[in-house]
């Protein structure tokens, strides 16, 4: 009996003492979670590979991702935007300097503050691969370079016309899935990324990520091999299809995301199911080290900003007990009363319980 008593009192004392330690563990876990993604800066490479007026929707796709990425915090200096043709100031555009994503001209994704780094004839397979691998001529200006390091999370978005294993650039050349996989391997060996998210919206897009073999890559595509990605809706005033289905629903999803949002990759995989997209979006996560459920959308689409750090520090400091007046830790009183009751029943026996109740 005495031994039992000693054991339970020890257990209670241990509980009382460990409660403040549990608190500091919680704080460390929160801080650890903040740095678990391991990246310190974000880059985005957004490419539209199609030329000609009837491919308006590909430019609108790229500009809507550009708009979301800018809104979530990545600055223009960290975005390489490549548009193969000019739709906004095209002579066929009934509303110049605008590119719409929704019919009835609801949302102008071109905006008033846009910086296109590669445009027109500059969008070629060679330039794209040179941007990715960093092997550019020395006179290339900074805005045209991908100056990422080994702590950068990069978002790469490609859209255009594609097929099984290739993506067409400007109706005159192609990039194959093997070239893309090799480019990513070069980037890995040169330590040019920490984690990379690759999104592609073309017909048979899943074929483009089949050949990846470098670590820390996650890929999404708008359709499987053998399926076509379809466009969303035409606008009768402009006369062309405005967006592709997958990117349209992706834009709708991203409009709900704000810089402090906790939405993760599993939500992104659910964007545009077959009922909406007609094609089956696919994704590939086997090369990625973290669990997709723990990867935030803002890890790739947003930017690591200083004020997030300040917020975290504010959280942590508000949970520390105040130094002015000392209160006993929570649960101490409860534990003490349980101890007293236990000792009481020990001494006087259970049959006296009826005196209490």
């Amino acid at each position, binding site marked *: 009996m005495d031994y039992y008593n000693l054991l339970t009192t020890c257990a209670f004392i241990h509980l009382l003492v460990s409660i403040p330690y549990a608190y500091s563990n919680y704080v460390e876990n929160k801080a650890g979670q903040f740095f678990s993604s391991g990246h310190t800066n974000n880059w985005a490479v957004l490419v539209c590979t199609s030329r000609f007026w009837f491919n308006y929707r590909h430019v609108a796709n790229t500009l809507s991702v550009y708009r979301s990425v800018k809104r979530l915090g990545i600055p223009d200096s960290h975005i390489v935007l490549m548009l193969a043709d000019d739709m906004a100031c095209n002579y066929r555009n009934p509303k110049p*300097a605008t590119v719409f994503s929704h019919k009835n001209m609801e949302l102008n994704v071109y905006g008033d503050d*846009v*910086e296109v780094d590669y*445009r027109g004839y500059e969008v070629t397979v060679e330039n794209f691969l040179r941007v990715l691998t960093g092997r550019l001529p020395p006179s290339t*200006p900074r*805005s045209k370079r991908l100056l990422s390091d080994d702590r950068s999370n990069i978002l790469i978005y490609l859209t255009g016309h594609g097929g099984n294993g290739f993506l067409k650039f400007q109706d005159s050349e192609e990039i194959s899935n093997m070239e893309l996989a090799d480019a990513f391997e070069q980037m890995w060996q040169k330590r040019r990324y920490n984690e990379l998210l690759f999104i592609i919206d073309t017909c048979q897009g899943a074929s483009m990520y089949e050949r990846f073999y470098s670590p820390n890559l996650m890929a999404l595509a708008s359709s499987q091999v053998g399926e076509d990605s379809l466009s969303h809706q035409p606008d009768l005033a402009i006369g062309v299809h405005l967006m592709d289905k997958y990117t349209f629903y992706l834009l709708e999803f991203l409009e709900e995301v704000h810089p402090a949002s906790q939405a993760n990759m599993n939500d992104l995989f659910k964007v545009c199911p077959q009922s909406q997209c007609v094609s089956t979006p696919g994704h590939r996560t086997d090369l990625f080290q973290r669990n997709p459920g723990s990867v935030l959308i803002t890890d790739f689409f947003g930017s690591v900003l200083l004020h997030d750090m300040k917020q975290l520090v504010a959280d942590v400091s508000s949970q520390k007990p105040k130094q002015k007046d000392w209160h006993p830790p929570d649960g101490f009183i409860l534990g003490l009363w349980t101890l007293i009751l236990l000792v009481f029943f020990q001494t006087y026996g259970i049959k006296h319980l009826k005196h209490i109740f």
Partner: protein
Amino acid sequence: HTHLNYKLGLTLQNRTSEALTPAAAARDEFQEELVIRPLHSGDIYASFQFRTLWDTDFLQEGQKVSHYRLFPKSLGQVLSKFSVRELHISFTQGFWRTMQWGQPFIPSPPGAELWVWFHDTVSDVDGNWKELTNVLSGIFCASLNFIDLTNTVQPSASFKPLGLGNATDHRFLRYATLPREIVCTENLTPWKKLLPCGSKAGLAVLLKSEKLFHSSFHSQAVHIRPVCQDEQCTSKAWELRQTLNVVFDLYTAGQGKKEWSLFKMFSRTLTEACPLATSSKVYVDITDNPELSPATPLLSQAVVLGDRRTYSVFDLTRAETFGQLRSLNLLLRWKGDGEMLRPLLHAERYVAGFGLQTGEIHTVIYNNHPYRAFPVLLMDSVPWYLQLYIHTLTVTSKSRDNKPSYIHYQPAKDRHRPHLLEMLIQLPPHSMTEVTVQFERALLKWTEYTPDPNHGFYVGSSVVSALVPSMVAMNTNFTQDQPLFSSFVPVKEESSYFVRVYTEPLLVNLPTPDFSMPYNVICLTCTVVAVGYGSFYNLLTRTFQVDEPSLPLAKRLANLIRRIRGVPLLT
């Protein structure tokens, strides 16, 4: 403690820098101006000019300029790194119609045009030029990196320095034009960011891309040159002028009525001047007596482009200009049934001929002056793939041969250099002069075609530069208060003014191969081989054997039992 030290360090640093360069600190000033000119055809022409004058020397040896205030740092660093003496870059969408609209304040050709005078201390001008175009392509978000030796020329007489400088050695001049270059919001955004107030205050709030690009003509330019600060030219300063010319069409933006307001043109009104500007003015051309409201007593007269015009001046630095509503919205209404002053100099260009082998370039220059003849300098830069036959060059005025007094011709070298033809032609009064030259189209290599070769290939505009005799005496006095639009081009004499006219760019089709042919050839060859040779091979090597058909399982089991019984088998 460290904070105090930092502050102290900063003040010490300021004092020492002031001691070394007493003049470099804040001797820069910024002026902004908008001129609105109603055009005879019902369109309206708005010309913005933003000028920053800075009293410093970028090209001085040993002392690097590091403190920038109003002058944009990106351009200042470009000037000092590449030893640039003058830089003129313009991006234009649309073509200036001289016969309908008169002469622009600052002419520019369609597409992108860049001409630069380098300092005579530069040893490798071509290397500097290549790097400069790459840096500018990053600053202005344009494909200026396509400028290389195949489209750069060194004009000998057409592009004299507009600022100070006695150097006439044209080895330090480079001129290139990209007629295909598109201008859109991505070029306007960095251009606006170079202004001291950005697009947040002053006249630049009117620059909204949705309205600016919905126009017949849009041109934005940056001009940097060294100028004199005073009459005697005792001190020099750097001048940066950012100009934006736009012509709004009567029907697409004006709904067919000759009634314009700032709100209708720009979808904004003016609320304040740029706080960093020493002068911020709006000039409205009222020479043809349009109705203008709100009325203003301030009037100014200026002789510009050979004509004396009267302007109403709105001074935005004064609070009463904005009235009670704190916003200025000018309304302009006019009838426009009078006669427009015919522009004295006008030029056109077109391609004649048929087929894809040869052609003929015709350049037509009109002299509309009733009794005065004057010389013009015509500069043509033709890409190497249109091979000019200079022996077929003819210049005719009034159906008689007109021999140019000065010809500078540099023939093209395939894939290295374009043609350059500069001629000084005397134009007889009230006449049309035609310059024709025949050419042959080259066959390009397979990889040299653009992704859309059936669109055609562009040939840059011709440049016609002249000192046109003026009907009205020009003002040669140098005053600091001159409006910016009249002081862009230095006026050397009273009786003439400088005019530069750009012709249309040409679009020619080169013999274009059918790019699907390799695919077709492979398909056809494989089909022929498979069908022809394959059948023949089969015929020779295939043998036929009689094959017992295999019975289904039930019949096989039945046959087994029949064999045991000794009864005939099933087939």
